[in-house]
């Protein structure tokens, strides 16, 4: 039954995709000899060979974590645009352990940095939740300001106290010890086990939302606040809790990326994932199952945009335009269909 509703949400997305193809062809079609050729470059860049598929999944992983971090608060009607800041917070907290306690026993290392990532992200999210619940501040504004704060803190750390001694003044932290690097799924490719973690988290969240009392409580709180109050549900507590959970997911995504891909903390290494994640979650209607394939689509766009830079000479900003056009056309199309029904 639930699967059916996931499918029902999927078909207007397909209509929007058609809009996207049309608009993109108009905008970028001239960069390759033929318009069909342009999309062929896109598809080949994202899925053409093992390396391309692996890169698509590499980019899908943080996107998926971020999308979950948006979808979780959205279950309570909260709009969090702070996934990127939460990712950085998680990467900073987890990275601190990898950088400053590098001699932890190997079996304890990865769990510890993951816990650090959860703690960093969750505290960042919980702070926004608390400001919302306690003072009634708008979560959109708070989470957005938090992004800038997290980014500046990272920049401060890697330009200052955490800068690696051997980096030649390049803004980056010391390399993580080998025990703190998440293993790849297939050796030789960069796709790492963080992807399985994210898919697992999506499945668990789907289950929790449908089948547990917490999921029910959230649905009651969003659907009928009066009943929720009579049942003794504290809206404030759920706001703080759900923002913390969202933050924790983003934090995990941040530390996974730092550990598996960068092996260190670097300047702006998560840039853009917050927005991509938000777009994915909104496109999926915050449906935990639909988010997974859409993250892969987003990963494909990000990867093929890199290819476009090399083959068609388009600048890096085209990926942002592609994302925006995709999002606008799907949102426009689905809302248009809904409003004319």
């Amino acid at each position, binding site marked *: 039954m639930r699967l059916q509703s996931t499918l029902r949400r999927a078909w207007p997305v397909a209509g929007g995709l058609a809009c996207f193809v049309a608009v993109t062809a108009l905008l970028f079609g001239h960069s390759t000899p033929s318009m069909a050729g342009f999309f062929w470059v896109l598809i080949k860049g994202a899925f053409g060979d093992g390396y391309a598929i692996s890169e698509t999944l590499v980019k899908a992983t943080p996107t998926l974590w971020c999308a979950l971090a948006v979808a979780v608060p*959205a279950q309570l*009607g*909260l*709009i969090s*645009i702070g996934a990127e800041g939460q990712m950085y917070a998680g990467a900073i907290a987890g990275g601190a352990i990898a950088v400053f306690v590098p001699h932890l026993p190997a079996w304890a290392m990865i769990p510890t940095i993951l816990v650090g990532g959860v703690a960093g992200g969750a505290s960042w999210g919980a702070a926004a939740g608390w*400001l919302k619940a306690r*003072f*009634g*501040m*708008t979560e*959109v*504004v*708070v989470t*957005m*300001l*938090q*992004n*800038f*704060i997290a980014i*500046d*803190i990272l*920049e*401060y750390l890697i*330009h*200052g106290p955490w800068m690696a001694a051997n980096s030649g003044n390049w803004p980056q932290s010391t390399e993580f010890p080998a025990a703190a690097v998440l293993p790849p799924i297939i050796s030789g490719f960069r796709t790492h086990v963080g992807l399985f973690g994210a898919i697992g988290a999506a499945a668990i969240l789907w289950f929790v939302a449908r089948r547990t009392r917490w999921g029910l409580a959230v649905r009651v709180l*969003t659907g009928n606040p009066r009943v929720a109050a009579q049942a003794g549900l504290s809206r404030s507590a759920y706001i703080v809790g759900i923002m913390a959970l969202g933050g924790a997911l983003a934090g995990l995504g941040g530390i996974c990326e730092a550990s598996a891909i960068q092996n260190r903390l670097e300047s702006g290494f998560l840039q853009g994932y917050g*927005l991509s994640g*938000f*777009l994915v979650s*909104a496109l999926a209607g*915050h449906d935990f199952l639909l988010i997974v394939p859409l993250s892969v689509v987003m990963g494909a766009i990000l990867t093929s945009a890199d290819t476009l830079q090399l083959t068609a000479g388009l*600048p*890096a*900003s*085209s*990926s*942002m*335009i*592609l*994302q*925006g*056009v995709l*999002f*606008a056309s799907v*949102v*426009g*199309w*689905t*809302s*248009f269909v*809904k*409003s004319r029904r």
Partner: protein
Amino acid sequence: MTLGTTAADMLLSALRSSTPMAFAICSEIMAERAGIVNIGIEGQMLVGAAAGFAFTVISGNPWVGLLAGAVAGAALSSLHGILCLVCRANQTVAGIAVMAIGVGCSSYFGTPYVGRRISGFSPMSFPSLPAGLAGYLGSISPTMILGVVTPLVMCGFLYMTRWGLRWRAVGESPAAARVLGINPTLYKWAAILVCGLLVGIGGAALSVDYAKGWSDGMTSGRGLVALGLVALTRWNPLLTTPVAMIFGAAESLSLSIQSHGIGVSPYLLSLFPYLTPLVVLALHARFAKRRSQMPASLANMQTFGE
């Protein structure tokens, strides 16, 4: 240097920093007063900055740049209008799509202009005044004056004209406005265009006058911060300048500390313009006695569910 001149210097540099922000805040107030939440102003500001700078370089006239910025801002803003008013999409979600397009397009079309320099507006001269005073007046640029005057004009429009009254009525309750024979869609479109024009000018003021250069993402979140600061103005354009000065003062203070070579990391200092609005907004939310004055029709748009 006496205390008086230092204070005047600081005030002027804060005002200079706050000018693009004032346009952004004022534009968002005008939109929200008619029931439009425009989260995309960050993107429109960037597009305005890029177009403004490009056209200043091409034409050599900064006023042409401001005009181009306004047109570019309004053009992108009307995409938001199409998404929310024609397609009836969720305003927040549509706004973020528009923001992404604006960020991408400004970078895409702005690339050839990175590193180009312009001289901006020629400073005004006051030969008949004493040198000190003339110096201060001369360092005031046309966009600073526009930035202070525009909110006053908008305030006059909203509170002293019949169209302003209808504009606000549409923001409070489109249904009631419709009963009174007002076409809400018309006013919402006007709000979207005015918002785009103003924030486009703000972006152009940033690149043409304040920075005199273009770089990717140069608004560094001003549009987003403005979105938060609107709550402090209580949706009244009259308070735009003082509220924008909060950001302006924080930014110019962190810049001047940096230039004095005090041993604080510039990255910690650049936290300041974001941390300050956050703290001020939290204090405002905590201690504000009166109702928030938020246009009533915005309240039911604050969530994802629609």
